[in-house]
């Protein structure tokens, strides 16, 4: 049995293994031990001369496997890898690595997996401490880590890529790596942490960690699986963990027992209103905010999508009039001319209304005039756009705008023209024919008058009746005085 020094890395081992293969020495004839540890079972004799000068074909998968497994801490690793190599090359088990259930292959693959895992953990758990700046202006950091396997060389490239701008060193019992001035160097391991005192950022890091710890999402087993306890002694945040775990139960319990807070009312400021205008149009339940000034409402209403009428209308026709008006007049919806001009009651019905108001002695300029529905609903009749009555859903959808106007103006007298306006504010039971005149609805205004809509007057074919109805209409309007 001969003793072979496995060397310090994969290249050394490969060299020795090649020599052994050439010497045709089977695995049970070889003892892999570092030189200087004299063994009773073997002699540290030089390898016998190669019997043949054949090169060996080794699947690349073996090289990858060996590179990883060789870093493992198990002292049997070299012997194991040589045994696999021997079987691959000399025993014509060319496909050995594909037989993943072979005991040797299983062992080697487990070793490789553990090494890779350790490298990953090293990436995660190395904590640097700043020890000042070099004369060159590059910051200098040191870290201490205690890996289970020899992964310093395997994990170093990650840190080099990540912290290329700084000078850093990672010390560990299994070897040290230094990145100084853009050069990477490896030195032998040290027994103790050379930098024992924490830097200023450590306390900040611990505070940060304590604050981002979420007690309601704690899964202790999972946490310890991902962050095994054996790394804790070198993690500055680890001392906080037991108390955080302890407190998490009570903290979660407190959170569950805390009574729900009332929703704060939506603040009334320009920024939010601007957002409202830009974002989700009313149709998802965001009604215009109460006590919004009329100017803002006028701008917002064009974006309303609460009902489909906006698609076929030219624009939304909001109410017009002084904000401190004593009298508010509500019609049904804008007509053809109103839709084109964007003003309420400027068409034929509007002109009739003006006349009637003047006759009744009411000054229209002091009144606020609006409609129950703000978009023109129409169907085409040749070139003409024929007015269509808005249905209940559309009236209901437009109601918040009307209510906002009502709240803003808070008129003393409210005139509702036509069945739609009346139904919108008083409910469907109101019939203009039956309940015409003053109506008791103090929640809307001190005086509420229900009457016909001027467009109804326009449509009466009989001249006689038309005049009668017109006079009745003017009488109703007179009720607004006094």
């Amino acid at each position, binding site marked *: 049995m001969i003793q072979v020094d496995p060397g310090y890395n994969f290249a050394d081992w490969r060299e020795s293994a090649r020599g052994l293969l050439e010497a045709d020495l089977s695995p049970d004839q070889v003892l892999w031990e570092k030189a200087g540890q004299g063994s009773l079972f073997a002699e540290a004799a030089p390898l016998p001369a190669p019997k043949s000068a054949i090169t060996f074909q080794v699947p690349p998968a073996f090289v990858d496997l060996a590179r990883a497994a060789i870093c493992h801490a198990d002292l049997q690793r070299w012997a194991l890898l040589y045994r696999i190599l021997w079987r691959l090359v000399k025993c014509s088990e060319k*496909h050995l690595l*594909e*037989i*993943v*259930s072979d005991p040797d292959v*299983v062992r080697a693959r487990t070793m490789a997996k553990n090494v890779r895992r350790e490298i990953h953990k090293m990436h995660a758990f190395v904590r640097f401490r700043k020890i000042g700046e070099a004369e060159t202006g590059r910051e200098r950091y040191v870290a201490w880590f205690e890996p289970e396997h020899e992964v310093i060389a395997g994990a170093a490239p990650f840190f080099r890529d990540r912290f290329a701008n700084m000078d850093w060193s990672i010390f560990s019992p299994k070897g040290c790596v230094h990145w100084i001035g853009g050069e990477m160097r490896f030195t032998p391991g040290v027994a103790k942490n050379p930098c024992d005192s924490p830097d200023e950022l450590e306390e900040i890091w611990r505070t940060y960690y304590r604050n981002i710890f979420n007690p309601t999402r704690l899964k202790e087993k999972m946490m310890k699986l991902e962050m095994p306890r054996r790394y804790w002694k070198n993690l500055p945040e680890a001392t906080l963990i037991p108390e955080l775990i302890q407190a998490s*139960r009570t903290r*979660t319990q407190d959170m569950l027992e805390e009574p729900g807070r009332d929703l704060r009312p939506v603040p009334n400021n320009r920024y939010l209103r601007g957002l409202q205008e830009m974002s989700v149009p009313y149709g998802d339940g965001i009604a215009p905010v109460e006590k919004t000034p009329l100017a803002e409402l006028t701008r917002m209403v064009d974006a309303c999508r609460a009902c489909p009428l906006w698609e076929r209308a030219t624009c939304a026709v909001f109410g017009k009039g002084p904000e401190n008006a004593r009298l508010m007049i509500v019609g049904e919806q804008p007509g053809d001319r109103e839709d084109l001009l964007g003003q309420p009651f400027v068409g034929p019905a509007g002109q009739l209304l003006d006349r009637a108001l003047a006759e009744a002695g009411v000054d229209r300029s002091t009144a606020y005039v609006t409609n129950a529905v703000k978009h023109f609903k129409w169907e085409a009749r040749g070139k003409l756009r024929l007015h269509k009555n808005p249905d209940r859903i559309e009236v209901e959808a437009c109601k918040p705008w009307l209510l906002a106007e009502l709240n803003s103006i808070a008129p003393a007298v409210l005139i509702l023209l036509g069945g739609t306006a009346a139904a919108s504010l008083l409910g469907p039971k109101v019939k203009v024919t039956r309940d015409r005149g003053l109506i008791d609805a103090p929640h809307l205004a001190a005086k509420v008058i229900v009457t016909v809509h001027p467009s109804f007057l326009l449509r009466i074919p009989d001249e006689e009746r038309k005049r009668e109805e017109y006079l009745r209409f003017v009488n109703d309007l007179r009720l607004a005085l006094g």
Partner: protein
Amino acid sequence: MRHYGFDVGEILPSDAPNLDLRIDPKLAWALRNRQEFPMNVQTAPRARLVRVPGLGVRNVDRLLQIRRHTFVRLADLTRLRVSLKKVMPFLITADHFPASGLLDGDRLLARLAPRPQQMELFAL
């Protein structure tokens, strides 16, 4: 269904329109279709092999790799971390053939269904 190629009618046949509450759908299918078993791990096609209760897609792919070069034995299955208790009635390996009474009979379901677990009353 995506990985094992099950059809809806296989998982929920017309005479059993609800999933069994004690066992997983794959095992339920296997118990309903005992005529398919036992399968030979050395020769069965992949689509049939994935239907064996206890063999998942990953392990079946490993077995396909292994069986090209060697005979699959129970020890291989153990090293692949396969539950032998689940697999043995349904699979034939180089060193195992399920006993004739194993696959038949109603005791199979009782043996394979997981034990009912007492839940905690005060779990958070």
